């Protein structure tokens, strides 16, 4: 092998090690017996997994996170897809400004957006005389803001790669505009939309900063419950919970990949 090629291979291996080492460490630590993590461990145990499942805050956090992520995707992905179609297909004035606006939740730091949402929710609560912070609705509303920019970005990219002649061919064969959309445009965008759902789901599921101020008693997400736990204890339970999370997300990605080759859309 030439020195250049060797360097190239080495670079790739180093990059993988850098990315995967923390995950590997996390998985390893979740099996260590010692309550205070030390190396080498005095033995291995599944106790922390049992502890994680036994503690109700992790279970309820997981359920809230899943609910919020699913609902945010159900609302945010169709909305983002519609926005992407509007951006790509119409001759609206200020299209550039509109696109930037749609992507802005990606640019604003999560903690800033979270604070702004918190203050807005408080004001709305006072006016409407109903609870918003600490409710499922409030969390979903916030997480829709995570789904929309990702969807707009991914679906806009798919739309740009779509040959307009294919839609014309459908119209030429007698398909009315709504039939063209359902039978041709939407199926051709499917890989992009699936990718958008996945990104949105993961973004929502693991979000901490935006969510921090919006949770309430009995309505808290898994990442927040993990932070709360960390304030009082430093045992490997968190590593166990995180490992379960990693496995679930990896499974989700593998299943998605069966339907849409992720390498083609990411």
């Amino acid at each position, binding site marked *: 092998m030439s020195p250049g090629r060797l360097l190239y291979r080495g670079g790739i291996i180093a990059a993988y090690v850098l990315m995967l080492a923390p995950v590997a460490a996390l998985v390893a630590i979740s099996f260590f017996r010692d309550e205070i993590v030390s190396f080498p461990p005095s033995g291995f145990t599944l106790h922390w997994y049992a502890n994680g499942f036994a503690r109700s805050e992790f279970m309820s956090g997981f359920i809230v996170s899943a609910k919020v992520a699913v609902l945010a995707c159900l609302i945010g992905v169709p909305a983002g897809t519609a926005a992407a179609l509007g951006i790509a297909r119409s001759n609206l004035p200020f299209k550039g400004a509109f696109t930037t606006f749609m992507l802005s939740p990606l640019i604003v730091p999560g903690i800033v957006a979270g604070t702004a949402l918190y203050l807005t929710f408080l004001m709305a609560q006072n006016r409407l005389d109903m609870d918003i912070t600490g409710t499922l609705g409030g969390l979903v509303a916030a997480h829709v803001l995570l789904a929309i920019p990702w969807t707009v970005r991914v679906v806009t990219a798919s739309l740009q790669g779509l040959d307009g*002649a294919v839609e*014309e061919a459908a*119209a*030429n064969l007698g*398909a009315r505009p709504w039939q063209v959309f359902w039978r041709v445009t939407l*199926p*051709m965008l499917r890989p992009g939309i699936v990718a958008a759902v996945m990104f949105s789901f993961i973004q929502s599921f693991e979000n901490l900063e935006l969510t921090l101020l919006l949770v309430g008693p009995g309505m808290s997400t898994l990442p927040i419950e993990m932070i709360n736990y960390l304030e009082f204890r430093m045992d490997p339970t968190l590593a166990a919970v995180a490992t379960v999370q990693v496995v679930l997300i990896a499974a989700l990605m593998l299943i998605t990949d069966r339907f849409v080759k992720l390498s083609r859309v990411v």
Partner: protein
Amino acid sequence: MAALDIQGLEKTYANGFTAVAGLDLKIGKGELVSLLGPSGCGKTTTLRMVAGFIDPTAGRITIEGREVTHLPAHARDTGMVFQSYALFPHMSVAQNVAFGLEMRKVGRAEREARTVEALKRVQLDHLAERYPRQLSGGQQQRVALARALVVNPAVFLLDEPLSNLDAKLRGEVRSEIRALQQALGLTTLMVTHDQEEALTMSDRLVVMEGGRVRQAGTAEDLYERPADAFVANFVGRSNLIRGRLAEGAFEAASGTRLACVPGGAGTGPLVFALRPERIGLSVGDDATGEPAVLKEILYLGAQTEYVVALGAERLTVIRPTPAAGDPLHAARPGDGVRARWTPEHVRLLPDT
């Protein structure tokens, strides 16, 4: 009644650009007419207006007696083959072909029978379950053909149908399309910038330039009797020389005199047009014709292209490659030759 009747068709865009400026064209039932011209001549815009993808600014389009000028594309009953084929990537070959029948609410049994029949017609029935990405360019092209034909469209539209195929396949598909079109008696409008494609496939050709028709007629009309210098040079090649008539012959601007039949061409500025293959060349003391000097020889295999200087003018000549032993075979650039042509073969065209 013409199967496709286009009257005074115009398209002017909001920025003032006129793509098509008053086009009249009648196509009879079962006739194949080509729109031929350089890019930007308005041929594709015309086709897209017939298909319903572009709304005309003025004029009328009538398909089999029904006015369709401002109807949406899906209500026109045209079958189009796109340059990029535009197959539905998420549907199998059979689903692609059946799509138009489905949109026309044809029952399932009939739909399947007609899909198979259409695929057989293009020899692809064995690939019905494949997806477009699994097919070669030529196969995709045939799926696009079958998809457009299966619905028995009133007008068949071909947009540069061969431009994405390699040269060898092009000739094959060309005759295949023509055979299908004739067998089914399809009224066809084709757009192409490739003159060979247009000459070999069409019943009639329409040469367009700058949004206007330059000349319409059969391949022979256009080739033998071009109406102007643009057509003479776009359809086939021509030696084009500017000048005027003087004392029964053509006098080029440079002063060189060339034989022709003056006819009623008048004394205004003219263009002398002569096909390269209509000029004969000979070498030797007993040779007849205008004395000329050989400048360039381009060996093309079956033919050889010569450039000769005749006075101050240069003429391109194409001859069957001379066999060894022919004095012309031994001729080299710089040699003296004789060039001759039948004066009747010269066209004197208006200099515009």
